[in-house]
């Protein structure tokens, strides 16, 4: 009898590149900020641009997060997601215009109540429309990507036209509430108050979303559903109902994003959702379809890059996002944080 071979496993130290690999997407954001600091000579304008880039990124994230989750969970690609952005903006802005006295008053409390009412109204409206959209438009075409793209695109057109019927074809101008106007000066840089609020709201939404997804039972079901829906159903959960819930929540978030985007631009049009869709798609693709974290990082990258490039070379700003997408897809074809599907 020969002796068993000696069991002496060797643990090779992971190389730095291997250990950094999973963190690379997260590190990209600070890297971009540092690159921006190197490229932009004045610190004050760099700070202003960084804040507005972050604010823009946060708003895109809020609008895009629903889309990416809906895709991850049910493999449904919703080209009509932009419709919820438009609806949210129109409902929210209408409420703000109704509460004109509250928004014009120089009192922070009244202003916040008005904005809160507008946001709640917008989210309720978009949630309801999202529910109807899912029932009428998306449900009959489950599992058929080609038809999903066509039908949801049709839905987007119909909603856009209905907005024009209800609110008229002209763009609507909206002033920000008194307390959110103006800027504060920090280290010589003028930082618009509204952008700081947008960053804060975005962070809160992201943290809340992560908390729900990582720490609650429903989050567990959603995450499991993204990875292997059939198995979750086999375990007795009605994934369809969860999916409808996620669709409604995603639509409501898009509505919130729409209000914030409308107040950011201070003008809303029926086509704004369609335009936002372009940024949303870029973000969702580079983040990795189905991944909330990837979507967050992607949104920040897009927001920051767009602001830096627009400052350095205004004409190139248009192509900068496309260039970013191309670069990231060359590096990771499935997006920065690809979702692992157990199929």
């Amino acid at each position, binding site marked *: 009898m020969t002796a068993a071979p000696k069991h002496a496993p060797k643990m090779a130290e992971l190389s730095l590149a291997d250990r950094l690999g999973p963190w690379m997407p997260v590190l990209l954001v600070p890297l971009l900020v540092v690159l921006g600091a190197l490229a932009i000579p004045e610190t004050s304008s760099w700070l202003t641009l960084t804040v507005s880039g972050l604010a823009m990124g946060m708003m895109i994230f809020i609008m895009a997060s629903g889309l990416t989750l809906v895709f991850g969970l049910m493999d449904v690609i919703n080209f009509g997601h932009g419709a919820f952005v438009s609806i949210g903006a129109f409902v929210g802005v209408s409420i703000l215009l109704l509460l004109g006295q509250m928004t014009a008053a120089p009192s922070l409390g009244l202003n916040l109540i008005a904005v809160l009412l507008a946001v709640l109204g917008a989210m309720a409206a978009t949630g309801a429309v999202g529910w109807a959209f899912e029932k009428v438009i998306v449900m009959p*075409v489950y599992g058929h990507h080609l*038809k999903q793209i066509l039908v949801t695109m*049709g839905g987007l*057109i119909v909603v856009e036209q209905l907005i024009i019927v209800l609110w008229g074809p002209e763009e609507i101008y909206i002033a920000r509430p008194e307390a959110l106007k103006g800027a504060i000066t920090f280290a010589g840089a003028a930082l618009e108050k509204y952008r700081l609020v947008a960053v804060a709201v975005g962070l809160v939404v992201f943290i809340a979303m992560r908390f729900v997804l990582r720490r609650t039972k429903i989050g567990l079901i959603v995450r499991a559903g993204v990875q292997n829906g059939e198995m979750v159903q086999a375990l007795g959960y009605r994934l369809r109902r969860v999916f409808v819930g996620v669709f409604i929540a995603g639509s409501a978030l898009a509505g919130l994003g729409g209000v914030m985007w409308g107040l950011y631009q201070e003008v809303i049009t029926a086509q704004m959702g369609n335009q936002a869709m372009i940024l949303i798609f870029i973000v969702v693709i580079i983040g990795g379809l189905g991944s909330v974290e990837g979507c967050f990082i992607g949104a920040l990258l897009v927001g920051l890059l767009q602001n830096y490039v627009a400052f350095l070379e205004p004409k190139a700003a248009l192509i900068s996002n496309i260039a970013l997408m191309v670069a990231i897809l060359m590096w990771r074809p499935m997006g920065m944080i690809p979702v692992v599907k157990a199929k």
Partner: protein
Amino acid sequence: MLRSILSGDLPRSTVLALLLAVILVGLALAPFLFPGVRTVDTAARICVFILLVASYDLLLGYGGVVSFAHTMFFGIGAYGVALALSHMGRGFGAIFVGAGAGALVAAVLALLIGLFSLRVRAIFFAMITLAVASAVAVLVSQLSGLTGGEDGLTFKLPRELGPAFKFGKEAFDGKLFGVTLNGKLLAYYFVFAGALVLFLLLLRVVNSPFGRVLLAIRENDFRAEAIGYRVVYYRVAATCLSAAVAALAGSLYAVWLRYVGPETTLSMELMIDILLMVVIGGMGTMYGAVIGATLFVLAQNYLQTLMGAASGLFEGVPILPDLLSPDRWLLWLGVLFILSVYFFPTGIVGRLRGGK
């Protein structure tokens, strides 16, 4: 003879064959059957859109890939001719150089987009084309030095294609069946012949072994890959071909309009029109493009008047006049579009052929 011209893909339905014959004869003799500026203009638009929609159908109906950049390729072709004619002077050489360059640029761009997105998933293609197309549309309206910006470009065609050029003075006294023989007539037949030849070429492509592989990929890409066809290569090739033909359609359109602008060649509305024409006519058959484009362009020209009348009828009722106003034409098209994707996925041609 007919069989080989149609590449063996006969209409396979009497009604469809009749309809196609009526459309062909109608377009071929349009200047004589329906003399009038507006009707001939409509006929030329139908020719261009049949070709454009057919090239889109190669991608959507045969390749199973949704693109939102088809108007971009269309626009590249149109701007190619416009730039060539305004910089090289009025001549047929400039038209062909512009059209060739436009088709080449479109194919290369399609190759790049296709390689980036189609190697991962087909749905990436839809999203990326949407992003790229909108960026290009904004770029075109901003680079006003080159493209004329929002105003677009007007340019001069070769003299032979203009209304001032008269011919056949001695033989027919300058008129044939009461229609003045001038360059505008020649321009129409230039567009008609170009569209017809390219359409037959597309029909040849989809009935070739290449077209069969595309169909196989559309039905089950996994199995097609397993049999040994590189799905990515076939899809990218279809994308390039479709982009090049779309660019040529754009060139024909530019020749007919003697003008290019972002509104007429690059707008998102045009893209939606194309989608509607493909779906209503029938995806996955070239004849669907003929029927869809003809119906749609006719409806666009003549139905909007009807909607205006209907809107006037409901004057005083709260929302109805707004819903029915001709400007809300897209609303009803959107509804029609959704309904036809649900209930007639094979479109008019599929119905006529008695398909599922």
